[in-house]
């Protein structure tokens, strides 16, 4: 986890350490864990993405290929992060995949309205979890093309 920030491919925003570890392991199992940065709340995520705060020195032009965003976050919520991201002219092209415990979340609709790229319910079963994460990583990291790259 000491890779250069300007080569980050995945930004994982997750406050629960266990979930973060499981996600990283799932990605790892799918060989997709290179250049992953894990931030623990929405404020940090925004700092990273807009190169502010502790990430002020980061090269803003090089953005992650995908943001894995938990909705329930301390300080700034996932929905707020999504809103800021999607309302920024440049950052809006970054694919955002919402990872949440349940699709019953009241924020699902809001997320779609704001322009989320995917919405994933984290299965309880680890096998399924690995499968789902693998599929999304494959898609967003390897198959998806984003403009001006």
């Amino acid at each position, binding site marked *: 986890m000491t890779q250069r920030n300007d080569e980050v491919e995945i930004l994982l925003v997750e406050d*629960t350490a*266990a*979930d973060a570890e*499981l996600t990283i*392991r799932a990605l790892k199992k799918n060989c997709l864990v290179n250049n992953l940065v894990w931030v623990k709340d929405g404020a940090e995520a925004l700092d990273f993405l807009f190169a502010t705060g502790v990430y002020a020195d980061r090269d803003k032009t090089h953005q992650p290929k995908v943001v894995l965003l938990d909705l329930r976050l301390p300080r700034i919520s996932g929905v707020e992060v999504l809103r800021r991201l999607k309302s920024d002219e440049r950052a809006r092209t970054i694919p955002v995949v919402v990872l949440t*415990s*349940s699709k*019953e*979340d009241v924020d699902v609709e809001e997320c779609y309205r704001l322009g989320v790229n995917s919405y994933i319910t*984290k*299965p*309880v*079963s*680890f*096998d399924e*979890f690995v499968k789902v994460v693998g599929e999304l990583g494959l898609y967003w990291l390897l198959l998806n093309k984003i403009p001006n790259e």
Partner: protein
Amino acid sequence: MVTPTISAKGRPRLAERATSSAAFVKWMQVGFALINLFVFGMVGFSLHQSHGESQARAAVTGQNLSHLLAQEFAGDIDKIDLTLFAAADEAERQLAAGGIDGPALNAFIARAHARLPNLDALRIADAQGIVAYGSDVAPGSQVSVADRPHFVRLRDEPGAGRLISRVQKSRVNHKSVIVFARRINRADGSFAGMVFAAVALDYLTRAFANIDVGRQGSISLRDAELRILARHPVPPEPDKVIGEKLAVPTLEALIRTGLDAGGYVSTDTVDGVERKFGVHRIPNSPLYMVVGRATGEYMAQWRNQAANTAAMVALFFLTTLISSWLIHRNWKHQLVATLELAREEEKFHTVADYTYDWEYWEGPDGEILFMSPACDRVTGYSPAEFLAQPDLLYRIIHPDDAHLMADHQSDITARDEAGVDFRIVRRDGEVRWIGHGCRAVFGRDGKFMGRRASNRDITERVEAEATVRQLNASLEQRVARRTAELEAANKELEDFSYSISHDLRTPLRAIAGFARILVDEHAAALDSEGRRLLDVVQVNTVRMGCLIDELLEFLRLGRRPMNFGPVDVAQLVLEIFRELRDSVPDRKLQLVLKNPPSLWGDRTMIRRLLTNLLSNAVKFTQPRPQAVIEVGGEIQGDQVLYYVKDNGVGFDMQYVDKLFQVFERVHPVGQFEGSGTGLAMVRRIVGRHGGRVWAEGQVDVGATISFTLPAREVANDATQ
């Protein structure tokens, strides 16, 4: 026309007028009766008078007539006497001169007879009674009258004078005659014979017939013994009358008095006709002339007059009777009409005066034409005050409500009927609410006649309504508050449930994930018991995951908006059944569809409901080699009943209450898969559709889950 009335007092009483007219009619009838009585009396008196006069006149006429006839007949008798004297003298002279010269005597007699043509015969009989000379006496005739009483008497009584015989038949010419006779003496005074003149009764009768005594009158000549000598008219059987003494005691008594003349009334002994008779003795003879005038005849004129008068009187009586009857009938009709009118008037006045509400009639020019006494009760002002001051109606309106009445006034110009509620200030200052309604009044000719209004004191109602409104408002507030509270509590509870189930997933995922990692990466470090225990952990995390998912779905059912539409139940059941059958290919399942009707509901929910019921059926028929699942339904009034029946393991009815509760199971965990939310979900879905669900079962026989849904839900119920 319209008479303003204030109250029942001082109103013209039609009934009294009817009574006084009854008295008038009664007096009029009495007057008619008196007039009739007076007329009857007058006419009766007058007829009585004329009756007496008529009788008196008849008596006088009869007596005069008998007198005249007697006089006339007396003259005839005198002439006959003279002739008899002359003939006797001639015969005596010839006897004295030497004997009778027959031809000379006959010539003498013939000359004498010629002077008296009325005589039937003039003859002389000799001393032996042989009729020797005179009319129709043939020479040598041997006819004897020696046996005649008058001959006998003349022969025997030298001083007998002139005799008049009874009616007798002439022996010469056989005519009925009476004979006047005189003695003939010789010079020495001895009897030499008799000279006699016969008067034929026919002659007398003819003479009488020339006298007008009326058609029913009679004239008769009687001798001294009152024997009838001659009579007009001639009786039908003359022999039984002529010569007979048919006389009434009245006449005999009259004659016995010795008077020469008299009169009497009697029924004629000859023909039974009642007559008034006049009687006169013929002078110088013992004969009586009796003239009778029939009462019926001489009274005929009077009777005619009386009949005419009676007819006139009867006509008068009839006229007055009919007029009286007509007047009475007319009056009776009028009386009936008047009484009817009085009753109607009474009725309408009762209707008008005894209204509970304050009623009035305002004329086209604003004048008050009627004011019901109830105004006193409602306003404290009397009807008289309203009648005297038409603007009082408007003055008592509460100033704050004056505009309401103004609006109403402009309103009623356009409409026939209108109403308004306003307040009035009573005489005692109390403010009351009035419910006013009025409508235009039109006469039969369509002429506008003002407005008829009805005012009701609605204060109690208005106050009650205000109270109710206030109560309703506060009730609504309370209900809204309680609803909000309940909604908040419900939301809180659901949020809490949701949050719990949601948050449970995160640690569960960690447990499952790390247990898995432990198995994957550190299995070698564990013995077999450790690996078994890790398996148990993993199995239970999976089950808990399922529980949480189902709990979430269950909760979602309560929150999800409903989207109503038509649902083809049979089609849906088939679809679901196929999916279920595909999931258990090694089992033998049979679906029996018994025409379940279509319904109106949320398709997604109904699909979930049917899925749960069918999968339950599939699940609990697992031990059966041939599972039979029956789905049917029918419309029952405004409900539709459905049932899903299986031949599975069934259940004990004593646990039926647990069947529909969340996470409640009636079979031990492990025997059948499932969390225990399936039927709870069914109940929730049925409940949200406004229906009812229940179950029947028997252990090892099967179970039937039935539910009803409203036959047609309102489409916009989706807001729930």
